[in-house]
């Protein structure tokens, strides 16, 4: 990367800024999406929280190295949407990343599992509209590739999870009152959730690699259509793994406890459905959001077990978050693109405001922390998360009884 020196100072400065922001976005992405893989095994006690997030982090790290196909699609095409292709500038990518990061942190503060990819797309779209006009976004592609999959993903995953939960219970049900061994699903959960974490690594770390590569291409530091550089892959893998290890405990609580009371068989069915849906879709070239698939699966598995109830109020809040993700991050991205359009000073203002907002969110979050540390300190984490995400406590049904507690 010595070729930096040949470019004008302000250009390489913005490139460095974008790389830093992109890696921070990757961190928030991992942080936000730990829950997708690890909420259910933590909820059922299949793994201790720290072990679960460490496993998820390791698998995200491995997953990031497995493929760079998605990264190549992003740097090679997706963002150059529209006829003729818009020329996207590093400033626009910077603005888009600001939008994506801020929205990711806001949804984390409320414990909402929202799609990090939608936040990224929203931010970039908002920045592109301000930077290059309304014509720069191909709305047909937007509906086709982002909005319709967003509606369909949770439905497919929910249906798959419903079906597999039913199957798991029907097959293991014993009418003679003998032990049914359903606790054995805990072992399976370790593997199924690992698969989800791996799938997440192969998908989501790629997006940041794609963005960084896109910046290098648009700044003329790298040839068009070339692969991400090795240090980019390494840095992205480390950022997403670090984010995953830090763990978005608020979202873990929402997915693991907020939607429905997850039992081992359900958790296994939900994770298998999540992994199957993500893998099937990415293998067959149909882009789905990991987060939406995971949430859909948890709701589906809640519907599939006898005597379990789904808290539709929480599900509705999550749905609202999904609806808002694209427009909200687009608005933040647009504002920040507008400021960035003022020149180097605008970018400085942007960076300062973004830092202030990020720090403010962390300060607000520190008031009622939800983390694995509070667990060690003996503070009641569940009660805290209940306060944060405002879950109404629902008493377990009496029919569930002692036996199904296993």
């Amino acid at each position, binding site marked *: 990367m010595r070729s930096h020196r040949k470019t004008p100072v302000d250009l390489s400065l913005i490139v460095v800024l974008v790389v830093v922001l992109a890696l921070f976005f990757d961190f928030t992405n991992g942080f936000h999406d730990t829950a997708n893989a690890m909420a259910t095994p933590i909820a*059922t006690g299949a793994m201790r929280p720290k072990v679960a997030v460490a496993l998820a982090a390791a698998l995200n790290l491995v997953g990031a190295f497995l493929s760079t196909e998605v990264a190549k699609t992003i740097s090679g095409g997706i963002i150059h949407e529209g006829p003729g292709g818009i020329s996207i500038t590093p400033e626009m990518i910077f603005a888009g990343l600001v939008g994506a990061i801020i929205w990711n942190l806001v949804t984390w503060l409320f414990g909402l599992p929202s799609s990090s990819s939608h936040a990224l797309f929203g931010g970039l779209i908002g920045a592109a509209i301000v930077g290059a006009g309304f014509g720069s976004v191909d709305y047909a592609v937007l509906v086709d590739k982002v909005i319709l999959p967003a509606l369909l993903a949770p439905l497919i995953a929910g249906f798959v999870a419903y079906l597999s939960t039913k199957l798991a219970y029907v097959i293991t049900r014993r009418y003679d009152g003998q032990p049914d061994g359903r606790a054995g699903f*805990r072992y399976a959960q370790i593997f199924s959730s690992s698969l989800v974490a791996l799938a997440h690594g192969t998908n989501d770390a790629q997006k940041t690699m794609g963005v960084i590569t896109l910046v290098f291409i648009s700044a003329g530091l790298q040839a068009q259509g070339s692969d991400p550089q090795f240090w980019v892959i390494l840095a992205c893998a480390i950022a997403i793994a670090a984010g995953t290890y830090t763990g978005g405990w608020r979202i873990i609580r929402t997915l693991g406890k907020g939607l429905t009371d997850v039992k081992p068989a359900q958790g296994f069915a939900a994770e298998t459905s999540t992994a*199957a849906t993500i893998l099937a879709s990415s293998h067959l070239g149909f882009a789905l959001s990991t987060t939406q698939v995971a949430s859909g699966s948890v709701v589906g598995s809640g519907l599939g077990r006898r005597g379990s109830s789904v808290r539709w109020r929480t599900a509705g809040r999550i749905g609202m978050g999904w609806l808002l993700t694209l427009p909200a991050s687009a608005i933040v991205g647009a504002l920040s693109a507008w400021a960035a359009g003022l020149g180097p000073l605008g970018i400085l203002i942007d960076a300062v405001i973004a830092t202030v907002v990020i720090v403010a969110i962390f300060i607000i979050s520190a008031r009622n922390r939800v983390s694995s540390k509070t667990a060690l300190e003996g503070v009641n984490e569940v009660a805290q998360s209940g306060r944060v995400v405002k879950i109404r406590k629902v008493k377990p049904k009496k029919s569930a009884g002692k036996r199904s507690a296993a």
Partner: protein
Amino acid sequence: MINWISFFVVAFAAIASACIVVILYSLGLRLMSTAGKAPNVIPAEFTDAITVITPTEAAAEAKRIRKAAKRNPLSPTRKRLALAAAYACFALCGACVLFGIYLIIPAFHR
């Protein structure tokens, strides 16, 4: 418009693969319990664990499983057969998962 054919392919592939894995593992557990070896996996204990089982409850469950195993009507050969079938199910299930991992790694498809 959205490519509905690819959508249905994705939906079908997801349903088929998830169901195969879940059916195999559940069948394995069912056969374990038929063989009188129902697994008793106690949830990990950590402060504020969502699923909590007291040691007494865990011990009671273990006792129940031991009792059920004693009253198991199957002959020793059949028990062994059921257990072998259970392990075969788990192995097959693991193979399916490995195949899934194989599918997502593009390095294997070049």
